[in-house]
Each structure stands twice: as structure tokens, then as C-alpha cells.
């Protein structure tokens, strides 16, 4: 069986990370922004696992568990804050949340 080379994984994770960051920058809907952030974190997981397998060093895979846990916690906190804002402002679009400006 032929092994998929490391570069393919890195390229894929680079593409996923870029899509995620572009999503954060351009999307207006906050739930989609959170999804884009999740995508960035998952691309990181892919890089870590790929490097870990390539180097034969398991600590990268251990790191992935922590990243997943933190991602879940971050989503929970983010959605709770979003809910609190939705109760007072009735919107989830970032451009309509603009009381604080320089």
C-alpha cells in the first residue's frame, strides 16, 4: 500500500486554515464565524497528527486531544455569550453590533 506523503497533509491543512481565516474575516453571521474558527483549529489538528506520524513522536497526537477539548469549551463559551447578546440586541450579525467604536 502506498503511503500518502506528508506534503499532501500539510497542503490540505494549509488550505483548511486559509478557508477558516477568510471565513472569520468576511462572514457576518456570528455562528458561521465560530464554525470558521473550528475549521482553523481542525486544520491545526491535521498538521499535528501528520507531523506526529511523520516524526514518530506521539506528543503531537496528545496535543490534539487538548486542542479538541479546548475547542469544545471555546464553542460553549462563545455560544453562551452570543445568546446573551441575542437576548438584548436581537441580532447575530456582526455588523449590527457596533456600539463600541473609536
Amino acid at each position: 500500500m502506498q503511503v500518502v506523503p506528508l506534503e499532501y497533509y500539510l497542503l490540505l491543512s494549509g488550505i483548511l486554515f486559509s478557508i477558516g481565516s477568510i471565513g472569520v474575516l468576511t462572514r457576518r453571521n456570528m455562528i458561521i464565524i465560530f464554525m470558521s474558527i473550528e475549521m482553523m483549529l481542525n486544520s491545526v489538528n491535521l498538521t499535528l497528527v501528520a507531523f506526529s506520524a511523520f516524526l514518530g513522536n506521539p506528543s503531537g497526537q496528545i496535543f490534539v486531544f487538548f486542542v479538541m477539548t479546548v475547542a469544545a469549551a471555546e464553542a460553549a463559551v462563545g455560544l453562551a455569550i452570543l445568546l446573551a447578546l441575542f437576548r438584548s440586541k436581537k441580532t447575530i450579525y456582526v455588523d449590527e453590533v457596533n456600539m463600541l467604536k473609536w
Partner: protein
Amino acid sequence: MNPEQLKILGSSFLGDLLKSVNLFYPETALVVTFLLAILVDLFTRNRPSCKMSGYVSLIGFFVTAIFLCNSPQGMSFAGTYAVDAFSIFFKWIVLITSFVIIVFSFFSKELFGEERQMGEYYTLIVGMTFGMFLLSGATNLILIYLAIETMSMSSYILAGYTKEIKRASEASLKYVIYGATSSGIMIYGISLLFGLTGSLNLSGINAYLAGNNVNHITLLISGIMIIAGIGYKISAVPFHFWTPDVYEGAPVTITAYLSVASKAAGFAILIRLLNSAFTIHAAGDTINTAWSVMKNVDWTMIIAVLSVLSMTLGNFVAVWQTNVKRLLAYSSIAHAGYILMGVAVMNYTGVSAIMIYLAIYMFMNLGAFFVVMIIANHIDSEDLEDYQGIGYRSPWLGVAMTIFMVSLTGLPPTAGFIGKLYVFTAVLNSGMYWLAVIGVLNSVVSLYYYVKVFRNMFLRGAEKANQPIELSLTVKVILIALIIPNIALGIWFGGLVNWANASAAMILK
């Protein structure tokens, strides 16, 4: 592996664990405090605005301080967590700030105005303290990431704690979006660094970088991504976008907390990362030897550029601010710039100058925010225009604020002068004259907006003198307690300087 080998491995693991537990008493005390504060809150649930869990947290901080006093030093948990003089200094800054912030919270009308459940508030502050303790000693990338997240997650919630105020929930949402994005960027940098060096321990990374040739571009990208994540915590330009909004929207106590404690913890990890991972360490490395930064990437220049950007943007934008909290937000960005000058020097003189600066910055910034909070309690406003005549309505607040502003500007005889003096001396000694010149020019600009606060308080609105603001005795005592270090450290600074010099050493293993 035969059973004999396993036994040796197991006993060395246990031995390391037992040794580590001895080094981990202050953190353990914080976790116990965290749990106790939740428990106490459960029993006092039906009495909103009860301060019981706040008192529990204060006692917990006191116990932590006792453990911190007697803390031994060493490397713990298989080389992932360093307890050294450097981290202990930063832990003191974090601990004192947390203590003072909880005391401030008791006086906040904003927090206690509504019938609000306050239990979680104290619990989260204790949790955040724990995260910052870990951050100041972390030497492993996993632990660094987890510590940053522990601290951030609590601060996201705290920033929006007054959730029925629209401003606060907006601030908290912006904070969580920027924060999650920047930590995503940081961890991508970490994954690249792991791929480059095959190690997650700072010492392992250091050993690999010193011995092998790695791809410079990848190292540069991963380093910048990690610095972006930390730069977000210390609110350095260009990672500062959240700072003004969050500082303005969050409750004053939390604004003060973010501006002092999380900035200090961020600087601790930035310095440790640069020193432990990207510097060549010779065998007889002592505090007095200069760092020899690895030649592959010019970290000094990157930090110096960040520093210049932060100082200049922070000071110039602050000039136009009309909201005092926002003004202090930009001033805190500018101060991050001054402190980054000390990082750019990349030697132990710079590190000890940073420690002196942060210790002094803690007292002056906490003082300024306390005055802002007390004024907001009485006049329900944080607008600079509404500050007119405060000096006549309450000479206490006026004089205190003036002292803090003079200290923030860095004029003698206040403590702020000593902080700036040591940072500028470190920069000049290292020969980066252009950086020192930009720093001094920036201090002159900062004088303008700090004096603007003073002018509104004393030179305008004298006719309001017939509406005096009465302060309670405890508020006066706290004001004096904050003014004393601001003056005293400007005159008797020898002790602090000696302590900082002795604490600049980091364990490199």
C-alpha cells in the same frame, strides 16, 4: 521492556511526581480556593449580592501567598513546568492584582447594582489567576496553550458579566471572536514549530534549533504566529483591535484586571519563549551574560518594530479619546510598547527592567481604574467631559487621580519615573539609540492626554464645588494604600530593583 526496567521507570516517574507536588503548592491552593468558592456560593445562592465567596477567595489568595513565600525552586512534571525566581516574581504580580481586584469589586455599583448572582464572578477570577500562574512557569507548548486558554476562557465570561448591559455583552463577544481567532493562529504556529523541531518542550526546541539547520522561512512564520497569539494577550499593535472595545465595555474591575494581570502573564511567557527557545545557552550561562539570539531569524528587530508600533499608535490615538476607560485602554497599549522595548533588548538587564516596570505599572494602573470606578459609582459616567470639577467636588479623588496620571506619564518623583528610567537605561546600554529616542518622544505625547484628565478635574467646572462627592472611610483607606506605593517606589526603589535583578534568572532545562 522487562519488568525490572518498568519498575525503575515507574519509580522515577513517581519520584518526579512527588517532587513536583512539592513545587505545586501555590497552584494547588488556588484550585482548592476555586472549588471552595463554588461550594460557598451554592449555600448562599438565595441571597444575591452576598460577598461570602469573595471573602473565601481573598482568604485563598492569602494562603497561596504564604505557600508562594516558602516555595522551593526547580523543574516539575517531567520538565513541563518551571518554578524559578522569574516565574515567582510574575506570580506575585498576578496574585496581588487578583487580591486587589476582588477588593475593588466589593465597591462596584456596576456589579452590585442589580440583584446579580456574584458567586461565579469570584470563582472565575480565581480560575483566571490559576491560568496566569501556569502561564508564568510553563515550559512546554501544550501547557502554554492550555494556560493561555484557561486564562482567556475565564476572561471572556468576566468581560460580559454584566450581561444585561448591551455594551458589556458586545465587548465580550468581540473579545471571544478575536481571542479564539488569535489562539487558532498561535496554535497553527505551534504545530509548525513542532513539525520543524520534533519537540514540544522549549528546551528540546532550543537544542534542536541550536544543533540543526532548519528552514528559516517556516521558522519565521511559526514564530510570528506564536508571537501574534501572545501579542494579543499583551495587546501589542497590530494585535490590539479588541483592547479599546473590551476595555470600554467590560466592568471597570475586569478592565483593570485585564490591563495588569493578563498583560504581566503574557510578558512572562513572551520572555520565556524568546529566552528558552530562541537563544543559544552556553554551559556557564549566568544572569550577567548577554543573550546570544539565534542568527537564523532576527527576533530583536521583530519585537522592536512591535514596540514602536504599539507606543506610537497607543499614544497618538489616546489623544482623541473622550471616554476615560477607552483612553486608559490606549494608554495600556502604549505601555505594552514601552515594556516591549525591554524585551527587544534581549538580555537580563532588559528582563529585570521589565519586571520593575510591570510591578510599578500594576500600582499606577490599578489606582487609576479604582478612581474611575469610584467616580462612575457617583456620577454614572466615564466621559471625560463629565469629569469637570471632580477635583473640587472631591479633592481626594482629584489628587489621587493626578498622582496616578503623573506616575503613568513617568515624571519624578513618582514610581512611574523609575520604571521608565530602568527600561530606557537598558535600551541605551544595548546601543539601540533610535528605539530610546522614539520611546522618549512618545512619553512626551502621553503627557498631553494624561494632563487632559487633570485639566478637566481641576481647571474646569469650579462652579460644581457645591455638589460634593462624599467618600466612605474604606474608599479613602484604599486610595491611600494605592497612592503610597506610587510615591514610595519613586523614592525608595532599591528593594524592588534588587528583587527584580535577583529574579531575572530562568531555569533552562
